[in-house]
């Protein structure tokens, strides 16, 4: 089986000319498997990709059924520096909110009070992470489901205080770290030259 994420590029200004396939572009960079109440840091992220994707199977440390987890870029924690919007559903009234915190709110992965076999699932995309002229915009969706409660979360956000290339990503829960069994995999995506 061959990789499928081949790129078609070089579309000229006029017509359809010059499509060509580039090498496979979706690559695994690193995977973190934190122990109980531990945070995750990806550092020295290679600058050779165009985009990053985090694929996460996670549980928070909160003793209840719902935790909130978050992300920081390059170790930065400016007050109100991470801005975003999210829509959340699954129980009770729907929620659509603006966020402005020292971290990027990534939603609810479920807490440690749930069945030990239940883990939330999230996918976070970070585009143009090496660009030094843009604020870094994130897209995130996921949630958790236990068969009795759950949350679904869809959000976007960005860091307004820095245009630096992203070389480090920190992930943790608001009630402490993440729980054993959590896996967070970082991937890089290339584009055609």
């Amino acid at each position: 089986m061959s990789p499928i994420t081949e790129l078609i590029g070089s579309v000229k200004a006029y017509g359809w000319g010059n499509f060509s396939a580039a090498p496979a572009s979706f690559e695994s960079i690193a995977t973190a498997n934190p122990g109980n109440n531990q945070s995750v840091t990806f550092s020295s992220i290679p600058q050779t990709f165009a985009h990053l994707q985090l694929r996460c199977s996670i549980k928070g440390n909160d003793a209840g059924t719902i935790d909130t987890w978050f992300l920081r870029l390059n170790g930065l924690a400016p007050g109100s520096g991470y801005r975003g919007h999210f829509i959340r559903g699954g129980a009770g009234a729907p929620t659509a909110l603006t966020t402005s915190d020292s971290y990027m709110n990534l939603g609810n992965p479920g807490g440690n009070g749930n069945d030990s076999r239940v883990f939330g699932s999230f996918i976070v995309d970070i585009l143009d992470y090496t660009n030094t002229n843009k604020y870094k915009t994130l897209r995130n969706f996921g949630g958790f489901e236990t068969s009795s409660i759950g949350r679904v979360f869809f959000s976007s956000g960005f860091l307004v205080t820095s245009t630096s290339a992203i070389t480090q990503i920190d992930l943790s829960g608001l009630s402490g770290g993440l729980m054993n069994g959590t896996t967070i995999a970082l991937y890089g995506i290339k584009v055609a030259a």
Partner: protein
Amino acid sequence: MAAGPTYEPIATTTLSSAQNSVSFSSISGSYTDLVIVINGLYSGTTYGKIKFNSDTGDANYSYNRALGYSGGTLFDRAGGSDGISLGSSRGTWIGHIQNYANTTKYKTLIARENTATTGTAVFVYLWKDTSAITGITFTGVGGNFDSTTTFTLYGIAAA
């Protein structure tokens, strides 16, 4: 640091005629995540359903959903169903199953559904079973999947 290219096609089925059921079997456990892509046409009011392995239980699946449609927004959840429900019209459904071969976790699946007539939605599903997923069955309920519907399965391997 990078471990090399991944995100590989495992299997694809394109229907040449209307069909009620499609299955992927003997799925390798060598990946970390599975991605299911359905570009589907459903007849009439038919909707699709997904079940894993040889599960015959009628209450092992649950979901919560955020849906935007012509009538506004809908947020709901339901437990104890007999499969993962797909949309009921022309559309695309993309689902992600992380740690699908893990045998200590229930299987959580997140999905986005975009249908031309019923709206766009984000789902979180749970299959309340710790078995590794080795088979996936798609079934039309009340009708068939139409001709030209495609079902594709990809595998992603983490470092």
